[in-house]
Structures are given as C-alpha cells and as structure tokens.
C-alpha cells in the first residue's frame, strides 16, 4: 500500500551553498497540514535560505521539495505560488508605488484579466470578477485594520503596517501553506498580539504555516512544533519545551538569545 502519504510540505536532503558557505546543508524537515511549525536558529543559520528554497526563489544544489504530494523541486516560484505555496520576505516586499488595496488585489489567484488578450476581449467577465475580488480585499483590509489606508501608496506604510499588508496578501492569495520569514520583526508589542491572533485565525481558516521567528514567546504561543537550525543544519525538532532541553540548542541558540 502506498498509503504513506507525504506531509503537506516535505523537504528532503535539500542543499544550498553560496561559494564556500553551506547556507543549507542537506536539510530534511516537514510541515503537516493544519499546523504552525516554527523554524528557529541563530543569525546566519540558514532559515531565510531554506524559505527561499521552499518558495522557489532560490534553486537548490541537490535534494527535493515536495508540496501537496507533488515534487515541486524544479518548479519556478510563480508555479509553486499558484499551487498555494506563498511566502513573505524577511524585509517586507510590498509593491511601494501601488496602493494598499492594489497590493492585496494583486494576490488574488486566477485573475481573468491578467493576460493581454483577456484584458482586451473579456472585459465584462473581468470586471465582474474584479468586483468580487475588490469586495474580498476590502473585507481583508478591515480584518487586518488597514481600511483607513486603502488608497495610500504602500511605501507610506509603517514597518508594522507593511507586515499586516503582507499577511493580508497571503490571505487574499488563498494560501495552503504560508512561509513567514520573521513577520514580527520591527513590530510593536501591541501590533504583535494582533498579528498573532491574525495568524491563528488564518490557521483556523485552513492555512498551514512555517514560521521563522526569533522571539521564543511568539513561537511558544503559536507553534505546536519547532525545528531548530544552526550552521545550515537541522539540529533538532520537537515542542518548544523539548528543544529547550537539548544541550546543543541551549548552547547554539538559547544561550545567546536569552
């Protein structure tokens, strides 16, 4: 029986070197459907590189990435995104000279008017779908507290507001799995708790997460399972309490952080 189905995301022996630096060295881990899985590790551990390899922005030297039972290793980033694998970037990557609502609308999947031909010929269908998407985008802006900023250019937003905008895009894009690279970086404590509850709500709506985060308080609140990376390798994984007991983790990570 081949009933041993793969988890939602399965990273198998993935490797990426930049010159002499093995940023990700033969790493294997997975994310199962429905969970928020933490990915922690000291600076330079290879977390962002791993996110890039999973999202397709980076090409690995060897190894495989499986997503939703498909081998996506050779897929370019946009194809993985269309399959429901969305990500944020460690530095927010909003589209600065587009408005906030345009930023959200852009994430809508399968837009009819997104080719030249349909922009010229399918204008009525396009407009109808756009009105639907617009309604959904406005709803999401309300959910993320961005309604007042709807028509502002995205570059005018504060760092924390940009993080919220990125989450709104993920929700708009109907992600199956979201890779969040330090979504709390530069976010005030007040906004932090709001982002935490947003992520929970998104999980409840069926989105799974791989969450790269330095703040173990946030990790403890959100993640049922944590993967620890150091120097390009997976050190260990388990619940936050389990990994706290791990001697190497204590030395490599917890020791320096707090």
């Amino acid at each position, binding site marked *: 029986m081949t009933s041993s189905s793969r988890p939602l995301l399965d990273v198998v022996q993935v490797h990426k070197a930049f010159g002499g630096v093995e940023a990700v060295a033969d790493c294997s881990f997975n994310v199962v459907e429905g969970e928020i899985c933490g990915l922690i590790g000291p600076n330079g551990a290879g977390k962002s590189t791993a996110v890039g390899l999973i999202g397709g922005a980076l090409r690995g030297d060897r190894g495989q990435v499986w997503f939703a039972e498909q081998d996506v290793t050779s897929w370019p980033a946009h194809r993985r995104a269309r399959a429901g694998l969305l990500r944020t970037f460690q530095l927010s990557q909003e*589209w*600065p000279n587009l408005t906030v*609502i*345009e930023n959200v609308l852009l994430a809508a999947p399968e837009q009819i*008017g997104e080719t030249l031909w349909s*922009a010229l010929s399918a204008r009525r269908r396009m*407009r109808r779908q756009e*009105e639907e998407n617009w309604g959904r985008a406005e709803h999401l802006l309300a959910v993320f507290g961005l309604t007042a900023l709807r028509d502002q250019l995205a*570059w*005018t937003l504060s760092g924390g507001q940009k993080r919220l905008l990125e989450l709104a895009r993920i929700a708009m894009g109907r992600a199956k799995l979201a890779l969040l690279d330090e979504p709390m970086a530069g976010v005030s404590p007040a906004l932090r708790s709001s982002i935490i509850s947003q992520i929970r709500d998104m999980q409840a709506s069926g989105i799974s997460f791989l969450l790269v985060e330095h703040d173990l308080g946030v990790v403890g609140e959100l993640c049922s399972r944590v993967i620890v990376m150091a120097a390009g390798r997976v050190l260990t994984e388990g619940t936050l309490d389990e990994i706290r007991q791990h001697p190497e983790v204590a030395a490599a990570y917890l020791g320096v952080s707090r």
Partner: protein
Amino acid sequence: MSTLLPIFATAFMYVIIYAILSIGLNLQYGVTGIVNFTYYTFVAIGAYVAGVLTLGKPPAGSGETYILGLNLPFPIPIVLAALVAGLFGGLLALTVFRRLRSDYLAITTLCAGTVAFDIVTNSTGLFNGPNGIYGVPTPLASTFGVPPQNTYMVLIPIGLVILALVWWVAHCIDLSPYGRTLRAIREGRDAAAAFGKNTLRLQLGVMILGCAIAGIGGALTVEFVGAFNPSAFETVETFVVYAAVILGGPGNNLGVILGAVLVQGVIIQGSLYLPTIGAESLVPAIRNMVIGGMVILVLYFRPRGMVGETRPQLGVPRRRGLGVRSAPGSRGEADS
C-alpha cells in the same frame, strides 16, 4: 495659409508618430519598468521592413541593393513591420531576461542596438547600407490622387486611426489586472513571482508588444518621409522618446502623449524653423541640450512628470468614483 498648412501638417504627423512611440515605450518603461535603451532600433526595424515591403525590386543599374522589394499594398507592410519588430523584441528579451538581472538590461540593450546599427550600416545588401532606402511611395496616395508634396493628407488620417488603436490597447491594459500585474513587476519582481506572476513571460510579452508598436511607428515614418537610413536611428533617438515619456509622466498614457506633443511638436518641430544662428549644427545641438536639461529638471523637481500615474480602479462600484490619484511622492522616495 498655403505655406503654413504643410508646416503644421508635417509637425502634426510627427507628433502622431511620436505619440505612438511614446505609448509603446511607456508600456515597457513606464508601466513594467523595463529599461530598453535601444527602443529606436525597433523603430528602425519597422521602418526598413515596411520600406522594403512597399518598394519594388531595386532598379537595375541604380546601385541600390536591399532585400525583398515585394511591392506589397497598404496596410500589409505596416502589419508585417509590427510583427518583425515584435519578433526581434521578443528575441532580445529572451536573451536578456532569462539570465540577467534587470540592472544589466539597460547596458545589454545598448550593446544590442550598437550591433544592429553596425550590421545595417555595413552590410549593404540588407537595407542599402549607409545610404539607406529611399523613394518609398506613400500608401494610397495614387489611389486618391494625392500629389507627392501633400502625402500628409492620407497619412494623417491613417496615423490617427493607428494612434487611436494603440491608445485603446494601452488603455485597456491600464484598466485591467494585466496592467496592475505589469506594475507589480516594475515595483518588485521577486514579490510578483512569489504571488504567482510569471514574470519572465509577462516581461517577454511587454517587450514584444512595445517593440511591435515601435515598429508601427517606424513604418509610418518611412511611409511619410519616404526614406530611412542609419543616421535616423542613432542612439540619441531613443533618448528623445524617453524624454517624451519622462516629461509627460511615466505610467500615464495621456501624459506621455502630452510629452510627445511637447518634445516633438514644440521643441523639435519648432526648432526646425528657427533661423540658423552660427554653425549649422548649433540649433540641433541646443535643441538636444534643452530636451536633456528639461528631463533633468523634471526628474529633480517633479519625478512623476507633468501628469502623474493615475490608476482607474476597475472593481470599484461606480458611485465611489473612478480614479485614485497617486499620493504625492516619487518612485525614488520609496524605501525598498
């Protein structure tokens, strides 16, 4: 009256051609952020292709040599000029976008343009080398019995129809999710890819479309002037189209048409009728300095051009109004 009309008609025809060229470049540069520094090479491709398709075989003993000479009727040469220019634009894009980061795009297009220029100048068998092609008849002139000095009487209506068509295409793009996605590529290619946009294909498409529009402009040029040679597509020509786009307002189709009126209609055509002062090349030199100076001033004081980018909101229920005007601020100010 009878002396002024041809002058204004000629200037008007050039403005039409320039408006078409500006819309094409705006799609690439203003909307998608593709810095194509050899845009005018595609104008030249369109001009040469339309020229040799409209002309018959080179007369024996004339010493002229060029390919084809098919004597095709209007509008086939214009259509084929667009197709060939678009094809070459796509080929350039394929070599450039697959491997290179967009920073290198500018320099690569510049090199490609130089190569094309040298090929056309030195291989006389292609488009008659440095002397270029000439004597290209005006389309439909004989049909309507228009005298040769009044060719604008047929070309202005043809040009206006083509301009309207090109503008309509650009306008539909502006109003569609397609246009929004192109702008997202301009604003951040990695983020666009991370949200499922096939950036390579989209950029390829815009290169093809923009270069095809350049080809149409070139075809109109050769049918209007009747001649085309390498001196007509030196590198500076590309920058004049950029000037129109930057002065008018990158990303705004009406803005770039305004830029075309200013640069081509006022400055270039106007300076042709200034009295010669000093050396013969002085007026054109001053003219280019004026254009260059204006571009610098606009980039410094008003980076969004005379008319900023506006984005009509497609999905907004009508009562909420049509447009959201961009908030003040420039591309340069965006902290990325």
